[in-house]
């Protein structure tokens, strides 16, 4: 069994190089298609991250009465933290809020008129982030029931609805596009390998006439397909690695807001995707192609 595998791999290696023109054509197609797939996957991942980031921004803001009793305030905070829908609760003091406001004005280059103010017109607030942006109902109800502490609740209700609809839509579109691109890549690669194997139909026919069993013919082709996939995947990864840093810097310089840093987890997933898709499609393509000549 092992001998057979070793032997088949050796024949696959020979086959790859002796039909170098076709192998390289197939590999080149593989590379381009994997790049396309990886590109879409990155965009999809980035989109998801961005959407998550936007959704995280969705929160319920409770303006607090300046004279709210500290213990009641504390209790409200604790209750909120205990609610299953709530992701985080942050207390922002009115001084903090004013500082933030000034910083923002400055960043925008606008004149800071807040210096002329006698008192700080901004309230203390509680910023409540939700685990699921759609679950704001209970939180708002609860806050509305605390008039001593809370002066006003701004659930940004409509905004929430809109954002959720938009992000869900974009997510769906992203997944659909990714699936379509995936199918395209699948078809193109299988088709390319089919054409490459077609040019060797005569070879397969002769092997059969000389008494080669189906497995004997098939396995070298399958390993050859795997080689095409593996080579293609490796080169794709190299290209991605080379392109990654400048692209990331460029993106980062632009979308300062979005956390488009790719962590090691993303890199691992991407590597798995590219190598898996490459080898998988290579094998599938070879299998399908050879099968059509063996079945007759």
């Amino acid at each position, binding site marked *: 069994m092992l001998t057979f595998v070793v032997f088949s791999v050796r024949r696959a290696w020979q086959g790859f190089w002796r039909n170098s023109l076709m192998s390289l054509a197939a590999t080149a197609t593989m590379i381009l298609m994997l790049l396309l797939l990886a590109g879409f996957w990155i965009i999809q991942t980035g989109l998801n991250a961005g959407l998550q980031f936007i959704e995280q921004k969705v929160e319920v803001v409770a303006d607090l009465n300046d004279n709210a009793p500290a213990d009641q305030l504390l209790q409200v905070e604790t209750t909120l933290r205990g609610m299953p829908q709530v992701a985080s609760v942050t207390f922002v003091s009115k001084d903090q809020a004013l500082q933030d406001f000034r910083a923002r004005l400055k960043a925008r280059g606008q004149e800071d008129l807040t210096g002329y103010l006698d008192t700080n017109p901004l309230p203390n607030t509680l910023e409540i982030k939700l685990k699921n942006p759609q679950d704001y109902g209970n939180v708002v109800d609860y806050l509305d029931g605390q008039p001593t502490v809370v002066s006003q609740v701004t659930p940004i209700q409509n905004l929430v609805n809109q954002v959720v609809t938009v992000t869900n839509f974009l997510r769906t579109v992203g997944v659909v596009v990714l699936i379509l691109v995936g199918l395209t890549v699948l078809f193109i690669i299988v088709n390319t390998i089919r054409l490459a194997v077609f040019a060797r139909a005569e*070879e397969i026919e002769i*092997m059969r*006439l*000389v*008494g*080669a069993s*189906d497995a*004997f013919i098939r396995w070298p082709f399958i390993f050859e397909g795997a080689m095409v996939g593996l080579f293609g995947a490796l080169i794709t990864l190299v290209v991605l690695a080379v392109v990654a840093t400048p692209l990331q810097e460029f993106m980062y310089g632009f979308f300062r807001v979005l956390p488009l840093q790719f962590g090691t987890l993303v890199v691992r997933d991407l590597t798995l995707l590219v190598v898996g898709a490459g080898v998988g499609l290579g094998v599938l393509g070879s299998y399908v192609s050879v099968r059509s000549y063996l079945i007759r």
Partner: protein
Amino acid sequence: MAPGSSTGLLRHPTLAGDRPPETTSERLVLALRDVAKTYPNGRAALRDVNLTVPEGDFVFLVGPSGAGKTTLIKLLIRDELATAGQVLLDGQDLGRLPRRQVPRVRRKVGIVFQDYKLLPRKSVWENVAFALEVTGTPGRRIGPAVDRVLRLVGLAAQARQLPTQLSGGEQQRTAIARALVHDPRLIIADEPTGNLDPLISWEIIQLLLRINEMGTTVLMATHNAEVVTALRKRVVGLEDGRVVRDEVGGAYHRED
């Protein structure tokens, strides 16, 4: 496998009828019963062919161009299926053989194709070795066997060349080497000397005769009148898809 079995030099029925009687005591390597083959385009290449070849026989298959010799050979290795009748190889009905069994049956036979059918991207050596590899012969036994058979057909010097780098005759000899290398019990050769000069032709024929004497059955389609007439072996004549004669000790041309 019993390539060296003592069934070697067989006595054949000596009548020159259309169909030698089947002596049940002999094992039949090949048997065609009422076989007809009509190609999908409607051309009837074989009609009512009855033919039996006992083990150890040496048979020349002769007939004009287009008579159906190659078609008959294609039926024997199940490259084509008969449209009527039975084709038995070693007692197995090829028409009923499941697809998966076909390679095993083909490996029993050494076949020289009229158009050689060499693997275009393998060297002479690799082409010949391929016939051993498909049988699962261990690598260490392949080398010596291939070298030996290449020396037999005079291609030792061309072992590393690709088929496209060979002369016509060298290609033909590669095909012959591949058919012999795995010591098959049956050798089917379709016009194996068409591109060989008379000297090498005779050498190849002598080689086949020697192999036949060791017990291997040989069926050879040929136009080489000189060889057929000189050897006086069994001659099966095809014409227009029909067996028109089956003589032991016959000449290339009909002698009546």
